[in-house]
């Protein structure tokens, strides 16, 4: 039994390997980019707007509100990164209802890449917002003795972010595979429905945690500026 779609190699040429994870990720990205480009090509400002535009507006406003609730009040700055994360994860987790589809999030490489993106996004956002000095000073808050713990927590939370999403999605796929061999008819459907719930909750949690990390560092820097 294989534990990730990385092992399915579709195409190999020298060191260039195209596995199922990359193929699915690119397919999802193409779908999202082309879909949103088609919808946003002609936007209307009127009392009666097209159906798809109103759906997209609802999604964007919903994400913006969630980001603001975490404490990032200039949500427009962050929605590009956090919203993309959320929509990609949500789409890739929800499409598990399609037959023969394996979510790219059930491979550790995808989730590790996303977690590393979050790892770098936290300092980038904070340095552009507050300057490098106040960001660095947030590491020695409240006492300089906390410095190693802050650094360890940066790495451990990145690892936790990656493994949490990977574990949840992989366990869903795995349990489904095991159930299909034991009770082939009704029960896998129930577990698929449950997998949809976990998938969307995990997408939400990944995004919320990323915004919480950004917001936490931002608050530390803001306190520094006030002092």
């Amino acid at each position, binding site marked *: *039994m*294989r*534990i990730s779609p990385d092992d399915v190699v579709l195409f190999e040429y020298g060191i260039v390997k195209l596995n199922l994870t990359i193929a699915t990720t690119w397919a999802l990205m193409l779908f999202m980019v082309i879909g949103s480009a088609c919808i946003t090509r002609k936007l209307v400002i009127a009392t009666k707007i097209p159906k798809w535009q109103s759906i997209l507006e609802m999604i964007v406003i919903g994400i913006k509100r969630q980001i603001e609730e975490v404490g990032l009040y200039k949500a427009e700055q962050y929605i590009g990164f956090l919203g993309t994360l959320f929509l990609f994860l949500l789409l890739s987790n929800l499409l598990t209802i399609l037959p023969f589809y394996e979510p790219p999030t059930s491979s550790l490489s995808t989730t590790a890449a996303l977690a590393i993106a979050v790892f770098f996004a936290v300092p980038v956002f904070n340095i552009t917002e507050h300057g490098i000095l106040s960001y660095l000073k947030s590491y020695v808050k409240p006492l300089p003795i906390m410095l190693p713990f802050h650094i360890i927590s940066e790495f451990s939370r990145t690892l*936790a972010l990656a*493994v*949490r999403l*990977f*574990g*949840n999605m*992989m*366990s869903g796929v*795995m349990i489904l595979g095991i159930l299909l061999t034991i009770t082939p008819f009704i029960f896998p459907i129930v577990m698929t429905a449950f997998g949809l719930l976990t998938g969307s*909750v*995990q997408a*939400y*949690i990944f995004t*919320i945690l990323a915004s919480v990390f950004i917001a936490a560092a931002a608050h530390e820097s803001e306190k520094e500026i006030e002092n």
Partner: protein
Amino acid sequence: MDNITIIGAVSILTAGLTMAIGSIGPALGEGKAVVSALTSIAQQPDAASTITRTLFVGLAMIESMAIYCFVVSMILLFANPFWNFVITKVAGG
């Protein structure tokens, strides 16, 4: 028992133990979290949406402990580095 048997047996046993022991803590923790969330919803039904959202996030954080155990046991069962090492050693030597 030769070395291969010992490594296989210990890996399988440890995978089982990892799941068994590792799911005790998260189960108790999730139970406590749900109990206090239900109590707060019963006391303040207006705040139900906020409580539910926080509950879900918290549950997923607690659950991730169990998920780590699951990942470790899956690695021991399907991608065991020690097993692979021994197998390549045997095949090579």
